[in-house]
């Protein structure tokens, strides 16, 4: 749609915060409008990247699961990871991408815990790769309003 959704949301956020909230009484409602504006601003910032960051992350986590093959993980976990690694992001609706992301990140927790408890260079390398992906995951989600 035109004008672009993110531009519309960002404009609404700026108007709510800068023009409307200061004229509202009582202060509690003004603050609620200000926070609603902040929420719209965060949605606006995340809008354009919403699908791409999920696809990028899902691919990265599936790659970690493929790297885990042959590590000697417990059979149930190994099978679960193998199945998830075969998944795809053909359905580009955000709800579908998010559902896939949640399943992958839940399994990533189990993989990480298992790898931490393992000895050997391969396990250490995968552990380091998981940490790098976790760091990257926070970079993908960064918002300008965040303090850190």
């Amino acid at each position, binding site marked *: 749609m035109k004008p672009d959704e993110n531009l519309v949301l960002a404009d609404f956020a700026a108007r709510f915060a800068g023009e409307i909230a200061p004229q509202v009484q009582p202060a*509690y409602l003004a603050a609620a409008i200000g926070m*609603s504006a902040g929420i719209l601003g965060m949605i606006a910032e995340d809008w354009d990247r919403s699908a791409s960051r999920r696809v990028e992350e899902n691919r990265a986590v599936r790659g970690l699961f493929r790297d885990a093959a042959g590590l000697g993980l417990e059979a149930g976990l190994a099978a679960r990871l193998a199945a998830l690694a075969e998944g795809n992001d053909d359905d580009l609706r955000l709800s579908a991408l998010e559902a896939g992301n*949640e399943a992958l990140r839940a399994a990533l927790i189990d993989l990480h815990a298992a790898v931490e408890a393992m000895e050997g260079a391969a396990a250490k390398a995968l552990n380091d790769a998981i*940490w790098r992906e976790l760091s990257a*995951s926070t970079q993908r989600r960064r918002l300008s309003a965040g303090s850190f």
Partner: protein
Amino acid sequence: MTAPLEPRIAAYIASRVPGARDVAVDALARISGGASRETYRFRLQYTDAAGVPVERRLILRRDPPASLIETQRRVEFAAYQAFHGSSVPVPEMLWLEEQDDALDHPFFIAQELTGFETGAYNLQQPPYAQHQASYGLRKWTILGEIAKADPVALGLTEVMDPIAPDACWKRELDYWEGVLDEDEITPQPVIRAAIRWLRANPPPPAQKIGVVHGDYRTGNFLYDDKGEIHGILDWEMAHLGDPLEDLGWGLNRIWCMARDDRRGGLLPHAEAVAIWERASGLTADPAALHWWELFNCVKGQGIWVSSARAWTDNENRDPIMIFSAWLMLNPQDRAALELMGRL
């Protein structure tokens, strides 16, 4: 439709002040900032038993249907009472009501400290920014005073759960991991990794069992425009425990409002810790403090996922519930990663 609050507050106060006549409440206004209680200010007027007119500005803190933080108001009330008149500035507590009859939900009424600011981000702007070092000195000195206080002498062991010095860390970690288990909407791989590390590397026993404020941070105190702090607020998570818990929360990266290394947007980490050590008479062992700082990332994430859960479940649709979750979840993960050397 719910009956207006003013006459109901007046009726309640009339029942609690012997001999009071012509009790009236006006200028009632809900104010922002209280995510765990509904907070209102109002003016109280009455004639006392001696015939003297009385006028007071007061605060009503009432439980909402669901909040960011599940807490016990009796403990909060007692903590305020315990420190009133001490070197830890707090408003005077007046009445605690734990039944629903008077105002639909439990509440307490307290003195309003007027003429001060609470906004965390205002401290980065004139006329406050030039006094950041003074606010920082006062902030961590007062926290040291809280840590130094004797909870037995304050009477707080009567209302707060006891804890052994070597059990503080586990009780807190168990609790907040439980909150995550119950409330998280999406998996939290960073914080789950932090929890595993914390369990594998427990801290030493607490140097003392002290009063832990539970939410001691920039944004939860009243300040003037000259560098002084006049009131420590939001004691709803107060408990007995390791004083390093409070220090670790206040030092958390998510409160770096100036977007640099100044903790609470006020002072560098090392300076804040040194001030706290001088004021408390305690030692902030670096390894122990590191544990408590990382633990506070778990606690923080527990708070943010709980607010997201309450909003999602339609228990509380106040915008602050989703605003805080969206704004804080990712910085909290980043803070944990930084502390684990993995950012």
